[in-house]
C-alpha cells in the first residue's frame, strides 16, 4: 500500500488537533509555577482624570497580600515602546507620548491600569485591589476623532497638541486635483469603519518567573511573537539583555492581531517576579480584555472618485481620521498609513490617487492591527464607493468593476500609492464567484423572497491586499523600527527525523501541520517524522512572529532556504559516499542519487553519516546536518479576490440573514486546502460580524458601553450560514513556493460584500449608504420611516 500523500497540496488532518480535542493543550493559564503568586490590576473606571492620590495601605495589609505597586515603584523602568514612527506632511515626526506601564499622574482611558496587587491567591489579590483608595479628578473626555479634533477639546497628552499624532499624506495631490477638475462626474461618500474588539477566545495571560541563582527571567505569555516581546520588553522597558530573558508563548487561543503587541501586564509581572523572587501570574477576565486588549478599525473617512462619462475611474481622493486611542500601541501608527492608504488602488487601475490621514488621540483603549489591519478599511471604502457610484450614476456594479480592473497582462503593476503588485487576476476570481453564487439567478430569488414579504439583496466586493509582511528595507524607509524577515532552523536528526524551529507562531493557523507538509515535500521526510517547534525564545534562534499573513510567505520561505542548505550539504556527503562528483548528485523524494544511475543514499543515511562521520569528507565540510536561514522578502505578496453576499431582510424586525456567502480568493499556491478553507471561513465570519453585529461603543463621555459579551454582539452559530469557499490562484512571483497568504482575506473582502447586499435589499427605501453594523434597529428604523412616509 502506498503511503497517503501528505505533502504540498494535501488536506492533511492537523497534528495539533489530538491534544486540543482531548483537553491536553498547554495554554498559558494552564501553566502554574512553584510558589506562584497572583496579580490583579486595579484599573481606571474613568476615561480621563488626574490622579490626586492613591492610598494602598489597606490593600497592603489585607490577607495574603505580598505587594502592591503603583507607577512610583516602577519609576526606574521605561514606557511601552511603539514599533513605528510616521512623519507628518511637513516632515516632523509623529507625536509619541509616553505610554507608562502603570498610569503616571493621569488616567487616559477606561481600563488604564493604575496599580497592581500581588497576593498568595487570586481571590485575595482581587479583594485587596478593591481596598486601594484612588482619588481621581475628572477631566473632560473624548471618544471620537471628530470630538478630539474640535477646538477646545480636552488635551490628552501635553506633547500632542490638538490631540494629533500625525498628519500624513500619500500620492500626487496636484495631479489628483487636475483630474477632478476635468471629471465628467464626481461621486463623494462619507463613511465610518466601526471600532471592533478582537476577542480571541483565550483572554490574555502573563506569568513572570525569576531564578535568583542565575538571575534569569522567564515570561510565559499569550503572544503571537515571543521574540518581539523579548526585544521590546527587554531592551526598552526592563533593560534586560536577551540572554537573561526567555519568553515563551505556548498554545495560544487565537490572536487576530490583538496578541502581537507588548502590553503593560507582561512588563509588570516580569518586573515584579524579579522584585519578589517569586513567580507572578496574571490572567485577564473578559471584562479586562474588553478594556485593555488593543481594539481595531475606527476610521472616519471621506472618499471621492472622479469619473469620465464612460465610467472610467480618473482619480481618487481620500481623507481619513484614524483613532489611535489613548496611547500608541506597538504597530498602531502603521495601520492607517502603510497598511491602508497604500491599498487604495485596490483592484483598479485608477491612475492618480491622493490620500490624507490624520491620526488622533482619544480617551479610548489603544487601537492597533486587527485581522486585516488597514486593508479591510481600504476595501470597505473602495467597494462601498464603487457601489455608491452605481447608485448615483446608474452604472452596473459588475460592468464598472470589470471596466476598471487592472488588466491581466499589466503585472507587475505599479500603483500610484507606492505598491507594486506582482501577480493577480481579478477577472477570473469575479467570474467564478458570480458563477458559484448563481448571480444570474438572483432576480428570481429576489422575486420569490418578495412573495414571502422579505427583502433580498446581493452585493459584490472585490479586494486586493498586501501581506507577507514585509521587505525590511522598504518598511524601514516607511518608519518601521524593526526588520520583518523570518528565521528557520532545520535540524535533521541522526536517524532522519526532522525538527523545524520557526520564528513564526501558530495560534490557530495549523503551522504544525502546514509547515510539516513543506518538509515532507521538500526533503521527502514522512509527515509523521517532522516536528514543528515554535513559541520559545530559548529554542528558536530568532523570529518576528505571526501577523499580516506572513507565516508561510516569509517563514515558509525561510524554511525552504534552510532546506536548500541541507540539500546542498547532503549532496556533498552523498558525493563522497557514492564516489561521484557533487555536480552529478540529484536530490528527489528523500534520496540523493547519482544522475543516470540507480546508486543512491537516502536522507537518513546521509544524516547518520553526518553525525557519525567515520567515512566523511571531514576536511571539506563540518559534521552535522542542521541549517539556519534568515529570509527577507523582496516584496509584499498580493492576494485578491471577490466575495458575493446575498441577504434577506425581514421588514417586520429589521433582522438581516445571510442566505448565501461565496468567496473566491487568490491566495497563491495552497499547501493544505482544508486549512485554507477554514481560514477563509473564519475570516468571513469576522467580516460578517463587523458588517452586521459588532461595534465597540463608547458614550459621549468616553465610557465603554459594550464591555462584555452581554453587550458586544459576537457572531454565534445561528447568525451565520455555510460559507462557500474556492480559490483561483495566481502564483506569487518572488518567493519560491509561490504562496501569498490566506489568514486575512476573509475579513478584508467580506464586510463591503455584506453591506452592498444590505443596501441593495433596501434600494426601494432610498438608502444610499449605511455605516456598519447594519443592526436590526437601524434597518427597522429605515423601513418604518419609509412606510410612514408612504402612508
Amino acid at each position, binding site marked *: 500500500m502506498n503511503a497517503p500523500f501528505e505533502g504540498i497540496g494535501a488536506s492533511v*488532518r*492537523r497534528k*495539533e*488537533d*489530538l*491534544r*486540543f*480535542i*482531548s*483537553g*491536553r*493543550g498547554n*495554554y498559558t*493559564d*494552564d501553566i502554574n509555577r512553584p510558589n506562584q503568586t497572583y496579580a490583579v490590576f486595579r484599573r481606571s473606571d474613568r476615561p480621563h482624570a488626574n490622579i490626586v492620590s492613591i492610598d494602598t495601605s489597606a490593600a497592603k495589609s489585607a490577607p495574603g497580600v505580598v505587594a502592591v505597586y503603583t507607577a512610583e515603584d516602577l519609576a526606574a523602568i521605561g514606557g511601552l515602546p511603539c514599533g513605528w514612527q510616521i512623519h507628518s506632511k511637513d516632515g516632523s515626526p509623529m507625536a509619541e507620548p509616553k505610554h507608562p506601564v502603570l498610569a503616571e499622574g493621569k488616567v487616559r482611558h477606561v481600563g488604564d491600569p493604575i496599580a497592581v496587587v500581588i497576593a498568595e491567591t487570586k*481571590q485575595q489579590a482581587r479583594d485587596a485591589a478593591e481596598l486601594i483608595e484612588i482619588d481621581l479628578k475628572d477631566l473632560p473626555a473624548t471618544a471620537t476623532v471628530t470630538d478630539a479634533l474640535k477646538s477646545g477639546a480636552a488635551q490628552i497628552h501635553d506633547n500632542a497638541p490638538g490631540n494629533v499624532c500625525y498628519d500624513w499624506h500619500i500620492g500626487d495631490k496636484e495631479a489628483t486635483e487636475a483630474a477632478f477638475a476635468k471629471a465628467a462626474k464626481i461621486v463623494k461618500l462619507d463613511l465610518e469603519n466601526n471600532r471592533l474588539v478582537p*476577542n*480571541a*477566545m*483565550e*483572554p490574555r495571560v502573563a506569568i513572570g518567573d525569576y531564578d535568583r541563582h542565575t538571575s534569569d527571567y522567564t515570561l510565559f505569555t499569550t503572544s503571537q511573537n515571543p521574540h518581539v516581546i523579548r526585544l521590546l520588553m527587554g531592551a526598552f522597558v526592563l533593560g534586560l539583555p536577551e540572554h537573561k530573558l526567555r519568553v515563551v508563548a505556548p*498554545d*495560544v*487561543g*487565537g490572536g*487576530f492581531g490583538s496578541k502581537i503587541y507588548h502590553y503593560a501586564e507582561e512588563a509588570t509581572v516580569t518586573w515584579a517576579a524579579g522584585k519578589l523572587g517569586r513567580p507572578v501570574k496574571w490572567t485577564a*477576565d*473578559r*471584562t479586562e480584555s474588553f478594556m485593555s486588549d488593543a481594539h481595531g478599525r475606527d476610521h472616519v473617512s471621506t472618499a471621492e472618485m472622479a469619473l469620465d462619462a464612460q465610467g472610467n475611474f480618473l482619480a481618487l481622493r481620500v481623507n481619513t481620521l484614524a483613532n489611535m486611542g489613548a496611547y500608541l500601541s506597538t504597530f498602531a501608527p502603521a495601520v492607517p498609513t502603510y497598511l491602508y492608504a497604500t491599498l487604495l488602488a485596490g483592484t483598479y487601475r485608477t491612475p492618480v490617487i491622493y490620500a490624507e490621514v490624520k491620526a488622533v488621540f482619544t480617551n479610548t483603549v489603544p487601537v492597533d492591527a486587527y485581522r486585516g489591519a488597514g486593508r479591510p478599511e481600504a476595501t470597505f471604502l473602495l467597494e462601498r464607493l464603487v457601489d455608491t457610484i452605481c447608485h448615483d450614476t446608474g452604472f452596473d456594479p459588475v460592468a464598472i468593476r470589470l471596466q476598471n480592473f487592472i488588466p491581466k497582462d499589466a503585472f507587475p503593476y505599479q500603483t500610484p500609492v507606492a505598491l507594486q503588485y506582482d501577480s493577480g487576476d481579478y477577472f477570473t476570481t469575479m467570474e467564478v464567484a458570480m458563477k458559484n453564487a448563481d448571480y444570474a439567478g438572483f432576480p428570481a430569488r429576489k422575486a420569490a423572497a418578495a412573495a414571502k414579504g422579505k427583502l433580498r439583496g446581493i452585493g459584490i466586493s472585490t479586494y486586493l491586499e498586501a501581506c507577507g509582511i514585509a521587505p525590511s528595507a522598504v518598511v524601514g524607509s516607511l518608519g518601521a523600527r524593526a526588520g520583518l524577515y523570518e528565521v528557520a532552523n532545520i535540524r535533521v536528526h541522526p536517524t532522519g527525523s526532522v525538527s523545524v524551529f520557526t520564528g513564526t507562531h501558530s*495560534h*490557530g*493557523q*495549523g503551522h504544525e501541520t502546514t509547515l510539516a507538509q513543506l518538509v515532507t515535500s521538500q526533503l521527502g521526510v514522512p509527515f509523521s517524522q517532522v516536528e514543528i517547534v515554535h513559541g520559545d525564545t530559548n529554542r528558536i534562534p530568532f523570529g518576528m512572529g505571526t501577523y499580516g499573513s506572513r507565516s508561510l510567505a516569509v517563514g515558509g520561505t525561510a524554511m525552504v532556504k534552510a532546506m536548500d542548505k541541507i540539500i546542498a550539504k547532503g549532496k556533498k556527503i552523498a558525493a563522497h559516499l557514492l564516489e561521484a562528483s557533487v555536480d552529478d548528485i540529484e536530490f528527489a523524494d528523500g534520496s540523493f542519487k547519482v544522475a543516470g544511475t540507480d546508486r543512491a543514499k537516502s536522507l537518513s543515511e546521509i544524516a547518520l553519516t553526518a553525525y557519525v562521520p567515520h567515512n566523511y569528507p571531514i576536511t571539506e565540510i563540518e559534521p552535522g546536518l542542521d541549517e539556519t536561514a534568515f529570509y527577507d522578502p523582496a516584496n509584499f505578496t498580493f492576494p485578491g479576490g471577490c466575495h458575493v453576499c446575498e441577504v434577506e431582510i425581514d421588514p417586520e424586525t429589521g433582522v438581516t440573514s445571510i442566505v448565501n456567502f461565496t468567496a473566491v480568493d487568490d491566495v497563491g499556491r495552497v499547501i493544505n486546502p*482544508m*486549512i485554507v*478553507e*477554514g*481560514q477563509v*471561513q*473564519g*475570516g*468571513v*465570519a*469576522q467580516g460578517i460580524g463587523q458588517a452586521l453585529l459588532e461595534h465597540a461603543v463608547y458614550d459621549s463621555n468616553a465610557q465603554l458601553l459594550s464591555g*462584555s*459579551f*452581554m453587550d458586544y454582539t*459576537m*457572531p*454565534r*452559530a*445561528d447568525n*451565520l450560514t*455555510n*460559507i462557500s469557499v474556492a480559490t483561483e490562484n495566481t502564483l506569487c512571483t518572488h518567493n519560491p513556493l509561490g504562496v501569498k497568504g490566506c489568514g486575512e482575506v*476573509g475579513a478584508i473582502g467580506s464586510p463591503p460584500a455584506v453591506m452592498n447586499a444590505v443596501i441593495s435589499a433596501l434600494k426601494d427605501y432610498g438608502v444610499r449608504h449605511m455605516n456598519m453594523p447594519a443592526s436590526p434597529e437601524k434597518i427597522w428604523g429605515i423601513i418604518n420611516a419609509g412606510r410612514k412616509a408612504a402612508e
Partner: protein
Amino acid sequence: MPQVTLTVNGKTSTVEVEGRTLLVELLREKLGLTGTHVGCDTSQCGACVVHVDGNSVKSCTMLAVQADGSSVTTIEGLAKADGTLHPMQEMFREHHALQCGFCTPGMVMAAVDLVAKNPQGLSEEQIRHGLEGNLCRCTGYHNIVKAIDAAQPLMHAK
C-alpha cells in the same frame, strides 16, 4: 472552609473550597484538569462546558459546593480509558472544526449533550440553534456544524 466530594471522570475526590469557588476553578486549580477553559466572565462563551450528572453545564455558572455529590465529566474524561476518541472528538478532527482549540473542549462537551439528547436527529438549523451558548472566534462555525452533523449517526449507532 466547605468540603466538596464529587466524582470527576470516574475518580472521587474530596476538596476544600471557599464558598465562592466556581466549579471551573475547582476543576482547573484543585484537580489540575486544565482542559476546561474560561473564556469570559458572564456565562456567555461556553468554553467551560462540562457534564454534571449527564447534563451539559457552564462550569463558570455553578458554585463548586453545588456540585457536591455530583458526577462530572470533563473533556479529559470523554475518550475511552484506552484512548479511543469519542465520535464527536473524531469528527471535530476529521472536519477541521477547530483552529486555536480554546473553545473546543466546551464546544465538544456541549455538542455531545446536544446530540445525545436528540436521538431523533437534528437539522443544520437546529444544530446552529443548539450552539448558541458557545462562542468560537476562529472557524465561523461552518465546520463545527459539519462535524456535529457527521457525529450524529456515529453516536446514535452505538
